[in-house]
């Protein structure tokens, strides 16, 4: 049974199904639902803490350090403050849409975690189409964001929401194509199976796929350098300009929840999930999530923001062709040399990545300039 497995901390790489069907089934569900909610909330708080402290230190300042030891309770204080604030709905807003938007954005961010394995078999639902589910669910948040932008009846919000829809629609494609490379390597759509197949982390076998997935993922979940939807220098706060109090907290939660979810997916697909020596698997998993998240914080600190047309051009002219080529090469490798030594493949794939990026850097200009008006 999954729970037992989770408790026993067993590294056995085999698929465990619930033993006693009805009772165990429901226990399994309740247990993991609670675990997931707690996990997401705690991780979001950790992520906020890491982001603010990391940003602070990289910017040569301290970051929050007053609430609790080392400022660890700052996210809690923030949450309490935000929850106690007055909830303001603009007069001309579409009330129902304005109310519904945070919920619709929030639910999918939580639902992604249902298929993410914390350990072998330790997951809420081991769907055999796990990664498909993730792709499908993660883009539902966009509807919430768009509703927020539309319902606020604010031009800044609307611009932000429009950008979001445009970007997510474009970035789904390279995202999916990058995933397919991994799926081809693993031979399964189930996240648990993908992890089990990763004796060598797929980041080494699929370096280009990792880069593409990371870039597309950042754009999809609104992380810098592609955080155009709430670009504070341009659009004040983008789609959530008119939100306050509880509803704003939900959007805040979505933002970090999605970041954590994306880190978890990257960990699972490319960094061999919960697998690792010495430490217990769930700890490995959390560590890897935090490392990926830190990478996001790091890029956020360093990079300026891309423009919307450059963002779209990056998706269609840079990521999409590279993803297609990557998929093609992976397919050939899987078909022709299924038993090739992995180290040779790693070497070949990294060489291919470097060559492709050099070529694309040389020949493609992304974005266009002035439009005659």
């Amino acid at each position, binding site marked *: 049974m999954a729970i037992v497995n989770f408790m026993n901390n067993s590294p056995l790489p085999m698929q465990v199904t619930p033993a006693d069907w009805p009772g165990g089934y429901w226990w399994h569900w309740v247990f993991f639902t609670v675990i997931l909610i707690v996990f997401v909330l705690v991780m979001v708080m950790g992520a906020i803490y890491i982001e603010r402290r*990391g940003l*602070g*230190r*990289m*910017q*040569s*300042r*301290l970051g929050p*350090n007053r609430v609790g030891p080392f400022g660890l309770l700052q996210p809690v204080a923030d949450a309490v403050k935000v929850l106690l604030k007055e909830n303001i709905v603009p007069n001309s807003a579409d009330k129902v849409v304005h109310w519904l938007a945070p919920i619709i954005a929030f639910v999918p961010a939580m639902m992604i975690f249902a298929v993410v394995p914390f350990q072998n078999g330790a997951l809420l639902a081991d769907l055999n189409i796990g990664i498909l589910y993730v792709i499908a669910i993660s883009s539902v948040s966009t509807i919430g964001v768009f509703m927020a932008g539309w319902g606020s009846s604010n031009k800044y919000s609307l611009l932000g929401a429009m950008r979001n829809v445009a970007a997510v629609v474009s970035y789904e494609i390279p995202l999916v194509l990058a995933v397919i490379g991994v799926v081809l390597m693993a031979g399964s759509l189930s996240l648990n199976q993908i992890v089990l197949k990763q004796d060598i982390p797929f980041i080494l076998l699929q370096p280009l796929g990792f880069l593409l997935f990371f870039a597309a993922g950042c754009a999809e979940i609104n992380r810098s350098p592609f955080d155009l939807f709430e670009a504070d220098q341009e659009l004040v706060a983008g789609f959530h300009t008119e939100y306050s109090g509880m509803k704003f907290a939900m959007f805040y939660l979505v933002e970090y929840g999605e970041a954590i979810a994306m880190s978890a997916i990257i960990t699972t697909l490319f960094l061999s999930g919960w697998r690792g020596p010495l430490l217990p698997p769930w700890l490995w998993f959390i560590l890897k999530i935090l490392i990926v998240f830190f990478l996001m914080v*790091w*890029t956020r*600190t*360093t*990079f300026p923001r*891309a423009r919307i047309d*450059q963002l779209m*051009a*990056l998706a269609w002219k*840079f990521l999409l062709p590279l993803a297609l080529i990557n998929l093609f090469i992976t397919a050939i490798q899987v078909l022709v040399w299924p038993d090739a030594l992995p180290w040779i493949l790693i070497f070949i794939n990294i060489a291919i990545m470097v060559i492709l*990026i*050099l070529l*694309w*850097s040389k020949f*493609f*200009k*992304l*974005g266009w300039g002035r439009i005659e008006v």
Partner: protein
Amino acid sequence: MKFERYGIGLIKGMVVTIKHLLRHPTVNQFPEQRLNMSRRFRGNELIWSRERCTGCASCAKTCPQGAIEIVTATNLADNKYEVQKYQVDTGYCIQCGLCVEVCPYDALFMGYSYERAKYRRGELVQSGDELLESPQRPASGYFHPEIAEKLPKQTLLVEKIVEKRK
């Protein structure tokens, strides 16, 4: 977006930020750690010396904001010329220090303290004995080099960073 240098610029920038993560931050924790102000610091309150003031009203004339009010009279009983009222509306004061600069008798000083917020507007209007120097109201060395010598050395960020990196 053209990756003219194949992303080298991106990586260079990331190296700089990660270096800063490992460096000591340059901020200081205000209420616990306090920096020494400049010796010539022009602080919140004006300090007036009753003994030295002759009531010439140079300060009142030069004040660009007209914040200083001074009334003088001849005291016939003691056969003296004395300052009856010296009042400063620190709410109007812009701490330009021109009054201290023009005072021919060194009777005015800028304050050396900075946490001088008041609860009421009326309290900002200070006059007479409220303006005298006291341990709570130290004088600064602005245009008074003899005071500046005694004040502690100013903390400089340049020196602080150099010290830390040693």
